[in-house]
């Protein structure tokens, strides 16, 4: 049972690609081995900035030999039949056996596939894996034609077992696999040979390489926390940054430095963003002041001066970067103080939003009008909503946002405060882009909600009007995200209005029904994630007022809960039975049974009881629906379950007496109508 060790040693692999690459390496190589008959016990893959490594243990030493028998044509069959069989099997006539078969003498081919040694299979599989590796971006180098993420320098590939170590005979574009590799670029001690995975990992460590990214991340996190803690500070956690930094170093050395007090006046988020974006620094917060006062950087080596030079260099770079940030911040503040945010945003008139939808300034005007219109529906003062909408995009013209686009909105909030906006207007600047994703927080402050809705509804109706809808996987204007944003804003804030449809109708060329259908589709996806089935939603979509998403979802939630109860499930079956019988009868008789059933034709006690139950339930359900108390309406409907079950149990609908039959069919129709007040049950599956 040999073990396979593979290392692909290259120039620096981008940090963001390492995780995926090691997983792909493992998947492709092990799949290839198994497909060729070499099974294994366990596999693990690793990545550092300069290497992908794979350890596969407990391989079959060789793939099992295969013996396959194929029956061919009869001996007296036409020549072409035999020729075809020889082609198919790759054998010559004299290699075939002739056996007696039921139908006479027949050719048989016996194909023996000998087992292949693990090393031979591994070489083939690995070469194919290297040549077809799914890098997000790959390149050529020098005069060669091989593609890899960066130049590939060496391949280590060995099979080892109790008997010893064997180099796998593998060569890819002139790179011959061997049993050696090298350690850290600066701290390693030259090439070395390895004999097994354990030996490899241990020697790498001696040569200052920590193979496992999780180990590196854990080291960085622990050291960073300890350094901050020792000074009474808190590390600002950032999992994404941690993973990235772990992919930039083979030998992490965590260093903490001071931020010059000159920059304490910058907003914390600006400090954090600048340090992270440009230098991949962690932020360290002083719990007493709440400000970011120190940074943590992760070097890739130890030095004789314990990182003093490295830290000094990093501090200097930070100083320059933050000088820039402060330069932008101060310029922006100066602008805002002089001309306000509206002045800052003047340039939006020169920025095209979309060539068919005008400039950003045109868009701001539309959003302002919409925000004013939406404001009363969400409990915001129309003037405040309009004010916020007017300035919410102004920071796109600020120097800070030009440098750090991810600070859009947030800078608007700071600048709005500076320009003496208040009453929720600054916060609306920050929040009006939200929610950005399915997990992003949904604003709840009324002014923010008004502007956030106006922003997204303008986008949706605008792109619908110029027929730029998402198709398949293409959604260049992020309209699905905008639709989900509208849905989450409406639902989280229980907004009650047929917003989108009304607004879309008021807009030229915008197909309001089509847009509403798109919104309904996104709603289905959203509710599915929350455990409400699409058919339950369909049953509610068929009801009036379906452009009021809050109402729609309240109804769907109550219906979904009802269907989970015993009563609900059985009532649905009763409904379906009634519906099926009616559909058959209507199809056969060519008439519809929509007349009012009459209790005087009732023959069975259960039939009379059902009349009574329907008479009682109908006004009750209607009243609850009127009050939009869907749960109570469903509960009232539950009272129908027993009478309906009893009715079907005791009574044959298709009675010989045509008057009785007709009356019963009309009674079934009445069940359909009474239940149909609450939802279209025929849409529900199961």
């Amino acid at each position, binding site marked *: 049972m040999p073990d396979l060790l593979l290392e692909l040693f290259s120039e*620096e692999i981008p940090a963001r690609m390492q995780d995926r690459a090691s997983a792909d390496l493992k998947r492709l190589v092990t799949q290839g081995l198994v497909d060729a008959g070499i099974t294994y016990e366990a596999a693990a893959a690793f990545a550092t*900035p300069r290497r992908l490594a794979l350890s596969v243990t407990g391989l079959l030493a060789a793939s099992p030999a295969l013996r396959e028998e194929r029956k061919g044509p009869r001996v007296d069959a036409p020549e072409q039949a035999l020729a075809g069989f020889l082609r198919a099997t790759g054998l010559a006539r004299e290699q075939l056996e002739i056996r007696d078969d039921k139908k006479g003498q027949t050719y048989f081919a016996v194909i023996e596939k000998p087992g292949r040694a693990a090393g031979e299979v591994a070489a083939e599989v690995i070469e194919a894996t290297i040549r077809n590796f799914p890098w997000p971006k790959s390149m*050529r180098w020098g005069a060669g034609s091989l593609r890899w993420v*960066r130049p590939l320098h060496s391949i280590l590939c060995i099979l080892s077992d109790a008997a010893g170590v064997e180099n796998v005979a593998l060569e890819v574009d002139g790179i011959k696999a061997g049993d050696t590799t090298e350690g850290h670029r*600066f701290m390693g001690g030259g090439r070395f040979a390895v004999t097994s995975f354990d030996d490899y990992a241990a020697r790498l460590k001696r040569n200052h390489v920590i193979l496992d990214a999780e180990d590196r991340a854990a080291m960085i996190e622990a050291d960073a926390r300890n350094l901050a803690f020792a000074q009474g500070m808190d590390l600002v956690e950032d999992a994404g940054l941690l993973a990235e930094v772990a992919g930039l170093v083979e030998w992490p050395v965590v260093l903490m430095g001071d931020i010059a007090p000159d920059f304490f006046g910058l907003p914390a988020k600006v400090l954090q963003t600048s340090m992270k974006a440009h230098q991949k620094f962690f932020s360290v917060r002083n719990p007493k002041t709440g400000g970011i006062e120190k940074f943590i950087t992760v070097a890739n080596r130890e*030095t004789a001066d314990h990182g003093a030079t490295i830290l000094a260099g990093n501090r200097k770079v930070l100083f320059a970067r933050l000088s820039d940030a402060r*330069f932008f911040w101060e310029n922006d503040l100066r602008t805002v103080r002089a001309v306000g945010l509206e002045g800052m945003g003047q340039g939006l008139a020169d*920025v095209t939003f979309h060539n068919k939808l005008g400039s950003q300034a045109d868009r701001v005007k539309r959003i302002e009008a919409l925000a004013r219109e939406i404001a009363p529906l969400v409990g915001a003062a129309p003037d405040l909503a309009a004010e916020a909408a007017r300035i919410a995009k102004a920071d796109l013209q600020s120097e800070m946002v030009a440098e750090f686009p991810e600070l859009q909105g947030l800078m608007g909030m700071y600048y709005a405060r500076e320009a003496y906006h208040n009453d929720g207007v600054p916060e609306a600047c920050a929040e009006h882009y939200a929610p950005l994703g399915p997990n992003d927080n949904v604003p709840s402050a009324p002014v923010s909600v008004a502007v956030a809705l106006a922003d997204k509804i303008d986008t949706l109706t605008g792109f619908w009007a110029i027929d730029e809808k998402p198709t398949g996987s293409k959604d260049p204007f992020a309209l699905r995200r905008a639709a989900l944003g509208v849905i989450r804003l409406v639902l989280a804030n229980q907004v009650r209005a047929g917003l989108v449809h009304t607004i879309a109708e008021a807009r030229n060329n915008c197909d309001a029904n089509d847009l509403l259908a798109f919104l309904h589709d996104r709603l289905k996806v959203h509710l599915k994630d929350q455990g409400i089935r699409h058919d339950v939603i369909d049953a509610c979509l068929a009801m009036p007022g379906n452009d009021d998403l809050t109402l729609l979802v309240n109804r769907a939630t109550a219906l979904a809960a009802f269907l989970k109860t015993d009563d609900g499930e059985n009532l649905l079956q009763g409904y379906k039975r009634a519906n099926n019988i009616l559909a058959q009868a209507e199809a056969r008789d060519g008439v519809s049974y929509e007349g009012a059933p009459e209790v005087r034709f009732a023959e069975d006690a259960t039939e009379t009881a059902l009349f009574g139950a329907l008479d009682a339930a109908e006004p009750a359900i209607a009243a609850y629906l009127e009050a939009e108390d869907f749960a109570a309406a469903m509960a009232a409907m539950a009272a129908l379950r027993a009478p309906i079950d009893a009715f079907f149990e005791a009574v044959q609908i298709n009675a010989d007496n045509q008057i009785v039959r007709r009356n019963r069919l009309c009674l079934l129709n009445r069940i359909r109508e009474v239940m149909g007040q609450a939802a279209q049950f025929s849409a529900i599956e199961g």
Partner: protein
Amino acid sequence: MQPATRPTCFQEVILRLQAYWAGKGCAILQPYDMEVGAGTFHPATTLRSLGVRPWAAAYVQPSRRPSDGRYGENPNRLQHYYQYQVLIKPSPPDLQALYLGSLEAIGIDMSLHDIRFVEDDWESPTLGAWGLGWEVWCDGMEVSQFTYFQQVGGHDCAPVSGELTYGLERLAMYVLGVDHVMDMPFNAPDAPIPLTYGDVFRQAEQEYSRFNFDIADTGKLLGHFEDAEAECQAILSSPVDDPKTGKRIVMAQPAYDQCIKASHLFNLLDARGVISVTERQAYIGRVRALAKLCADAYVATSDGGAGAA
């Protein structure tokens, strides 16, 4: 490796790089005599990275980025600065080691500093060019761009060139331990007339910052842009057979000069803030179209590898 003694001034950093790369076999060229945004625009990089002929060159290129002007006040932002550029085709297998050697040559002690290769794919939409590589960090500071060219002017690079670009001011400030670019010694501090970077460039930075941001006549710039574009196209549509010499002369490089001009004029217009987002794409597309025409023409020349095996 030579001992990592520290240079004393800006020009010594340049001289050491020149000596180092000369020692590694590069032809030491001079700057191109036109306004460019980066050393890559020098024909010794853009055009020479095309075709199959081997190439190895290094040079200083004065570069202009109008929108980076800070009136000479920012410690390290300049609208005019120097890049050091190395281009070797095909890229040698030990290019990373050669590069690290150049850092040692200018006095960076590898045992004290943290050198990192951080993903940074290079793309020049105006040149229709892209490559993969890194920005090289020294103690968190970007000191170079390191790129393996994959495509230039829309043509696949085969063989692939390795390109190194050093931002000379920033690198030198770091090596010399200077905090503000204007304070950096330009020549030796003990020279009879010691000059700082500020002595040489401060006033020019001020003048150009004002000019670039507020004065440059955008109408004229736009006119120049269109002239350069038309000239480039006209040069390349001239018949390749020269009646005077009777030779076949494709004028790739004169045409490329006009492409460089158009590119710089676009940068000036951009710095003036008169180009909107959608227009921006259109302008970039126009410059790229010129770059592509020039590349097409160049690969049809002898230097561009036409007729080579």
